[in-house]
């Protein structure tokens, strides 16, 4: 474990006593664990000094608007200084407190990341302005994520039929903010009680009952250090492979063509998952400038118990429909043919290779085929964002 974060449901800074007591106990037992905190920012200005004193690594503030006119359609009310405020007044107080809190974090030298939820028709266009406002106040990373609003979740937006954005709508917005600052693309919108890595949730192993049964957790500083060094060595190797492939591309000349590639991976930056076992695909955009990770698409498991499920394939195709190719470690005959029919090239020759390096090699071949007029480059259509919280397949 490297990072411990305290988030919702229920704002951690609405219950500062318990939040900071947890930090205190962690810092005492495992000093190399990074601490982080998520908040809506309403109470943030009151606690920046304490956050700084606990050496919190970074704070995430959810900022969905910087204009109370827009905010009143997102936040029905707030509870502030022992009073309930509604409508535009509530949104005005909230945005003032959020931006003040962000400025105070920056002044105190604490990293601030901003989360924003993209709600089509309400704040989608406005988020460019939010991006500008948070960047100018020193935020280091902006994570724009899609609204999840299935009616069965029982949220207000879910019940009144507010739709979430499509994959391309989200990507266009993220791209338009990217010139301004770092955009986070790997968000899986995990639940706040998640344990594990993004996309590899291990909450089931750590229920309250099981934690009670564990007698003593051993903190082994030396093993931790050795593992951290191993991870760093792998990372350097991956970067070197990608740089080599990119250097190789420089003699190809420039081109405006960009393609999107979906990758089935278990991690370590490699193409190492079977098509049928993938519960999500990583999406890369590749051009002559190199390959860039642009997001994830969750899918329903295609292969259950060794047999491909025919009815889930169309939903997988819809989730990666904006991609030209899908990289897999292995794929069965049936889905291979159907993907081809949908215009997505199933590719298994990069099995267990690094993703960045493979994407660039594939793109070089693609470009060569376009130039020799063997194929015609087209921009593909839009794709769906699967609704529902990410829950591991186990």
């Amino acid at each position, binding site marked *: 474990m490297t990072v411990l974060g305290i988030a919702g449901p*229920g704002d951690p800074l609405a*219950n500062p*006593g318990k939040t900071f007591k947890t930090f205190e106990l962690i810092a005492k037992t495992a000093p190399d664990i990074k601490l982080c905190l998520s908040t809506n920012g309403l109470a943030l200005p009151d606690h920046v000094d304490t956050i700084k004193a606990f050496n919190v690594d970074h704070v995430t503030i959810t900022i969905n608007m910087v204009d109370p006119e827009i905010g009143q359609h997102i936040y029905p009310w707030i*509870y502030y200084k*022992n*009073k*309930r405020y509604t409508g535009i007044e509530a949104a005005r107080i909230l945005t003032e407190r959020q931006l003040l809190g962000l400025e105070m974090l920056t002044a105190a030298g604490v990293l601030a990341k901003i989360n924003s939820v993209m709600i089509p028709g309400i704040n989608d266009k406005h988020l460019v302005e939010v991006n500008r406002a948070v960047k100018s106040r020193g935020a280091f990373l902006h994570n724009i994520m899609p609204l999840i609003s299935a009616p069965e979740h029982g949220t207000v937006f879910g019940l009144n039929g507010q739709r979430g954005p499509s994959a391309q709508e989200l990507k266009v917005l993220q791209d338009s903010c990217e010139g301004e600052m770092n955009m986070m693309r790997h968000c899986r919108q995990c639940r706040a009680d998640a344990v594990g890595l993004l996309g590899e949730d291990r909450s089931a192993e750590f229920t309250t009952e099981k934690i009670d049964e564990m007698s003593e957790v051993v903190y082994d500083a030396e093993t931790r250090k050795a593992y951290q060094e191993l991870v760093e060595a792998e990372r350097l190797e991956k970067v070197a492979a990608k740089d080599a492939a990119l250097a190789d591309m420089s003699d190809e000349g420039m081109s405006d063509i960009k393609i999107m590639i979906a990758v089935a991976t278990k991690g370590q930056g490699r193409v190492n998952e079977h098509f049928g076992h993938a519960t999500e695909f990583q999406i890369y955009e590749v051009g002559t400038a190199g390959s860039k990770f642009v997001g994830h698409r969750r899918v329903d498991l295609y292969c259950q118990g060794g047999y491909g499920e025919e009815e889930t394939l169309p939903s997988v195709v819809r989730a990666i429909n904006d991609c030209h190719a899908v990289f897999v470690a292995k794929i069965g005959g049936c889905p291979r043919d159907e993907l081809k029919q949908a215009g997505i090239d199933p590719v298994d020759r990069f099995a267990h290779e690094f993703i960045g390096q493979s994407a660039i090699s594939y793109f070089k071949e693609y470009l060569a085929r376009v130039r020799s007029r063997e194929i015609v480059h087209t921009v593909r259509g839009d794709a769906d964002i699967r609704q529902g919280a990410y829950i591991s397949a186990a």
Partner: protein
Amino acid sequence: MAYKIVASQCTGCSACEPECPNVAIREKNGVFIIDPKKCTECMGHFDEPQCVAVCPVDLTCVIDNAFPRYQVPA
């Protein structure tokens, strides 16, 4: 009179508990309850009852008609 929490609507979020100026709220079986003997409807403390103001579910903290309205002691 005092406020009470409609148990069927309470989500057990605990937001009300620390806000009560009379420490009248505690958890019972996963939901929260108000001790009517301690509740002063926040009179003398705040302009509005804090449990009502902070509760995320509308009409969950409501007046309990089984008790007379709270009177500020003379």
